[in-house]
């Protein structure tokens, strides 16, 4: 069986699962964020007094934080009230960070488990070898009410990454390369499994960017093996959350791991030689319109945005700092940096990265999603161009349909802010 067959079978309480089978799956975690308040209104229409699974629910406040309008503030307040009323304790306040980063840091999801989220980037949790998939608001309301949701077991495709990435090339470039090569629907409705020695070499942060981006490939979920790096990243976090020893935590994580069989069936196999991938940029207005960074050096940049659930982690900030330290951002260009979580913010502060950014002339935002989906805090003017480390460049995404959004790695975003145009980091750092 593939990973997804095993994970969904276990979550449905059955021995095995066939591709195409519909299973009633009981997710280990049901995630919602700023949409908790509207989901509550839908849930109320079901006529229940109590949710069925308070211990498995998690709320983050991240999409519009701190609240830009009274209406957004009311959403947050309703989520807090609802959590108190229903006994939901996994509540992560304004400023804690983006849902996928925070739930990873809290070790609320473990390898082999199933998380359903009312957020399309829930395939993110593939980084640890967990099944994550996005659902809609009505579905989340029904999960709260019944503890389960029907899911079809998808076909799987296997992406094998060999070799080593070139200097300044990242897993973001790999993801854009894959999406550019096979299209925004290249993984449509599939479980996209990553394997290979190229993946094994990657840091946890790099794997997160890769599996996060699979939402833009049409994937239902993504998977990367739960190797020792994953176990060691999660162990102290689970130990801290549950107040158990690291030995106990490590054992619990290892016991939870599921891996695909050697002879599992894949509908498609793709091989990527990492050493042949260059710095990629996705051009407006779809993620699969990719180009090499060098082809876009005439594109002037009004705003550079470093952050989001794709590339707002400590490794991303370190990469950007390597480019920006001691430099100034170009006149006429703005740089906005938003760490993905408070943990990332604290680490960046202790390493002096935040000061590197502010001395270069950057603005620093509150951990959260920032302007990624056009709510607030750095949206664009008509006619402007933004280069962003986010995952989506759809028309209108950052507040106006008359702006252009280019997607790239943190280093390319940083270099572009220094030169005021789309630029490779090698143009700034020798």
């Amino acid at each position, binding site marked *: 069986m593939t990973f997804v067959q095993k994970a969904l079978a276990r979550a449905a309480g059955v021995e095995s699962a066939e591709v195409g089978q*519909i299973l009633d799956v009981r997710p280990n975690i049901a995630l919602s964020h*700023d*949409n908790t308040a*509207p989901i509550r*209104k*839908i849930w109320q*229409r*079901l*006529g*229940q007094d109590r949710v069925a699974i308070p211990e498995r629910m998690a709320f983050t406040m991240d*999409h*519009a934080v701190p609240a830009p*309008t009274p*209406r*957004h503030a009311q*959403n947050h307040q309703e989520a807090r009230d609802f959590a108190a009323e229903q006994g939901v304790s996994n509540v992560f306040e304004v400023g804690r960070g983006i849902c996928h980063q925070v739930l990873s840091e809290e070790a609320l999801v473990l390898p082999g488990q199933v998380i359903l*989220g*009312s*957020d*399309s980037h829930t395939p993110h949790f593939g980084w640890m070898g967990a099944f994550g998939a*996005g*659902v*809609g*608001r*009505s*579905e989340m*309301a*029904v999960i709260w*009410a*019944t503890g389960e949701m*029907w899911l079809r077991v998808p076909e799987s495709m296997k992406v094998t990454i060999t070799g080593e990435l070139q200097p300044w090339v990242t897993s973001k470039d790999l993801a854009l390369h894959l999406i550019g090569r096979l299209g*925004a*629907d290249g993984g*449509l*409705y599939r479980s996209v499994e990553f394997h290979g020695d190229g993946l094994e070499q990657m840091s946890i942060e790099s794997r997160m960017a890769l599996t996060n981006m699979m939402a*833009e490939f*049409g994937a*239902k979920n993504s998977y990367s093996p739960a190797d020792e790096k994953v176990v060691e990243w999660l162990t102290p976090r689970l130990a801290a959350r549950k107040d158990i020893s690291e030995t106990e935590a490590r054992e619990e994580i290892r016991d939870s791991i599921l891996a695909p069989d050697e002879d599992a069936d894949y509908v498609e196999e793709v091989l990527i030689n990492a050493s042949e991938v260059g710095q990629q940029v996705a051009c407006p207005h*779809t993620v*699969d319109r990719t180009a090499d960074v060098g082809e876009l050096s005439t594109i002037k940049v009004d705003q550079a945005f470093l952050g989001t659930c794709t590339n707002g982690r400590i490794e991303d900030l370190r990469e950007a700092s390597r480019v920006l330290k001691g430099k100034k951002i170009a006149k006429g260009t703005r740089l906005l940096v938003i760490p993905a979580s408070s943990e990332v913010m604290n680490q960046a502060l202790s390493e002096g990265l935040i000061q590197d950014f502010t001395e270069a002339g950057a603005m620093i935002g509150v951990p959260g999603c920032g302007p990624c*989906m*056009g*709510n607030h805090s750095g*949206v664009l003017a008509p006619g402007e161009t933004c280069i962003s480390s986010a995952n*989506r460049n*759809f*028309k*209108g*995404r950052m*507040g106006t*349909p008359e702006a252009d959004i280019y997607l790239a790695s943190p280093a390319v975003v940083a270099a572009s802010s220094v030169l005021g145009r789309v630029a490779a980091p090698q143009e700034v750092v020798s």
Partner: protein
Amino acid sequence: MPTVDLSQPLTGRVWKYGDDVNTDVIFPGKYTYTKQDPEEIAPHALEDLDPSFAGAVQPGDVVVGGSNWGCGSSREQAAGCLRHSGVSAVIAKSFSRIFYRNAINSGLLVIAMPEVVDLIESGQEITIDLTAGTVCSAGRSWPIPPKSDSLRSIVLAGGLIPATKARLEAGQ
């Protein structure tokens, strides 16, 4: 709101668009946490794709798209705004999985008919007959691919919430 009754054959006009139409152009992200109700969301349907749509769409019209319709965000309003604008169905070559689920769960009929999309043009008259299981346009008729009984019952109940409410009340 002109939400249509799918138990009857419905005739309207085709609004045709391309591949990879995403949820940001169907229902802009800037409204996702402030606009929820049918009368709030319907006027913004396809706002950043075709600003003429929301003001001119008539009950029974059909939206036709290429491959990967509804890719992007999980926002359910992308399906809801189309349903509440009065369209009877979205026909596309293929759908993004979350949009597809959201549509079923919102009571919006979605039909994947890759072989039919290229034969239908904007402005043509089109009839959807769910009881007979056919789509008719330009003098031709195509069978609607069958959905499982559970999906069909969710659509006919008007969405996942009314269907689940009935199930919970029946003690199932």
